[in-house]
């Protein structure tokens, strides 16, 4: 009875959390500083998000109180560190709604997670003449590992094209699928265009042909609800540092039966059950894929980042960021000589743009002097730049702590760029 009461209270407390932007901004100490004499306007969140104080504190707390190597020690500190480390895994299980905790594998980041699948599942299952499908808007991290695998195995890499708005052309995707398709790997959201891909449909279609699907969730995990069971994703990868957590940690979700059938990725400690001079047997999931001492401190602090997201709620975050995106899109569209690259109907808070006759690097230098951090360049999507016949863009990407006032400062900054290069 008592437990039930607590639960009700907790639920009420959750729903009563008001999206308090002032409070949120206070939680991120880095935001409160001047850059080149101007208040920092941080709009490079697609590259990396800032960290709330709770995450920063969690890292020091780990080193100050429980630092020890995990899983092996019998002493108290090792046990405490192990418990905390495994608590992050359990938290991620619920964050992505995986069925089993051991379906959550820790990696260095999204890139390593994708490489892990290519090197294990890929090498084991993709043969000469087989086909792998990716899309035209993939980050190099979700392109190069497959090019490498295709090169090694003699498989064929096919590309789902996009329309001018930056949306995948699903009709064309259907035509690419056939019984030779072994793997489909697409982004949940595009890092350059912001496009949210219809991954549930993409996965469903692939499964009809017996192909497995990896979703690169790097740009989605902080902004969209991730439910791997609802998506029926075979693999889902994302990075801690893009969801307000520390750098150097990533997550690979994989369906248990797939992970169990896959060979290990790297050899070493932790991933083995027994080693003799003649050979070894490997450990159970998830440790089979986690050779060597992992990034313990940052993995533990990642839990705090997820707690932070959960505190405000994914839905509230999504609604707020959507409002900022809509406002920014309207404001930027009104600037003469500015063209937005990526106008999909469904987008995360990313706006790429080009300025008439002005190199993106020039724009970036001037904006930086105004205290505005945007990313300029090809955003690790060179083939996509080719698709739009541009060498690069300037990109503003939003997180839960950005405000409409900051969008206004960006607009003033862009107008200044226009004046200076006129």
């Amino acid at each position, binding site marked *: 009875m008592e437990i039930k009461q607590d639960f009700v209270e907790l639920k009420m407390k959750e729903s009563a959390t008001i999206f308090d932007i002032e409070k949120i901004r206070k939680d991120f100490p880095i935001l409160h500083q001047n850059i*080149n004499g101007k208040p920092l306007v941080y709009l490079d969140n697609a590259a990396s998000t800032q960290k709330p104080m709770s995450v920063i504190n969690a890292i020091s707390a780990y080193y100050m109180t429980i630092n020890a190597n995990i899983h092996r020690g019998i002493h108290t500190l090792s046990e405490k560190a192990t418990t905390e480390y495994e608590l992050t895994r359990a938290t991620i299980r619920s964050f992505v709604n995986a069925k089993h905790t051991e379906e959550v594998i820790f990696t260095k980041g999204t890139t390593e997670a994708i490489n892990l699948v290519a090197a294990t599942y890929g090498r084991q299952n993709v043969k000469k003449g087989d086909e792998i499908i990716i899309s035209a808007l993939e980050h190099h991290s979700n392109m190069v590992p497959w090019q490498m695998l295709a090169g090694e195995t003699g498989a064929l890499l096919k590309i789902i094209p996009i329309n001018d708005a930056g949306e995948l052309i699903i009709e064309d995707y259907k035509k690419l699928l056939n019984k030779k398709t072994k793997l489909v790997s697409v982004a949940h959201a595009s890092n350059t265009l912001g496009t949210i891909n219809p991954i549930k449909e993409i996965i469903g279609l692939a499964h009809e042909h017996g192909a497995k699907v990896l979703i690169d969730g790097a740009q989605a995990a902080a902004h969209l609800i991730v439910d791997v069971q609802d998506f029926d994703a075979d693999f889902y990868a994302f990075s801690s540092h893009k969801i307000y957590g520390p750098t150097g940690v990533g997550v690979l979700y994989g369906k248990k039966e797939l992970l169990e059938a896959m060979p290990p990725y790297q050899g070493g400690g932790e991933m083995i059950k027994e080693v003799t001079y003649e050979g070894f047997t490997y450990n159970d999931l998830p440790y089979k894929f986690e050779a060597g001492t992992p990034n313990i401190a940052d993995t533990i602090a990642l839990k705090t980042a997820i707690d932070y997201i959960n505190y405000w709620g994914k839905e509230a975050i999504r609604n707020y960021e959507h409002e900022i995106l809509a406002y920014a899109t309207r404001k930027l569209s009104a600037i003469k000589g500015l063209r937005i690259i990526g106008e999909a109907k469904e987008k995360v808070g990313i706006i790429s743009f080009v300025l008439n006759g002005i190199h993106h690097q020039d724009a970036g*230098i001037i904006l930086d002097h105004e205290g505005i951090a945007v990313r*300029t360049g090809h955003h690790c999507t060179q083939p996509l730049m080719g698709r739009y016949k541009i060498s690069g863009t300037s990109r503003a990407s939003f997180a839960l702590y950005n405000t409409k006032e900051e969008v206004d400062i960006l607009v003033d900054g862009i107008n200044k760029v226009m004046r200076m290069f006129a």
Partner: protein
Amino acid sequence: MTINETQDNIINDFSLFDEWDEKYGYIIELGKKLPQLNEEYKTDDYKIKGCQSQVWLHPYLQDGKIFFDGDSDAIIVKGLVSLLIKILSGHKPEEIANADLYFMEKIGMQQHLSITRSNGLASMVKQMKLYAIAYTTKLTS
């Protein structure tokens, strides 16, 4: 004029600007004024690889001195290229090879030579010196 005299003149010019945007405005003007490099030199052979902007550098030897033409698709970098050409072009190979380019720091543009800017400018300075060293060897052999 020696390399250092030209640098000192440039430092003097820049000391007249109070605001960063005036300084950049001037560099942008220099970038716009720098004649475009002949298309025949805008090839990979003359390209200095940078991550975001492209820089081309065409050196040639005349009467024992090295001359440079250069270009970039980004205007600020092109303006800085224009300054580098003004300082180094027309000097003897050994003078260029040994030049201490202190003007960048003095005019507050040092950050554009840093590796993180990945704009090819640092590689360009290195390339200019490498050409100078190569020509020195060529002239003495």
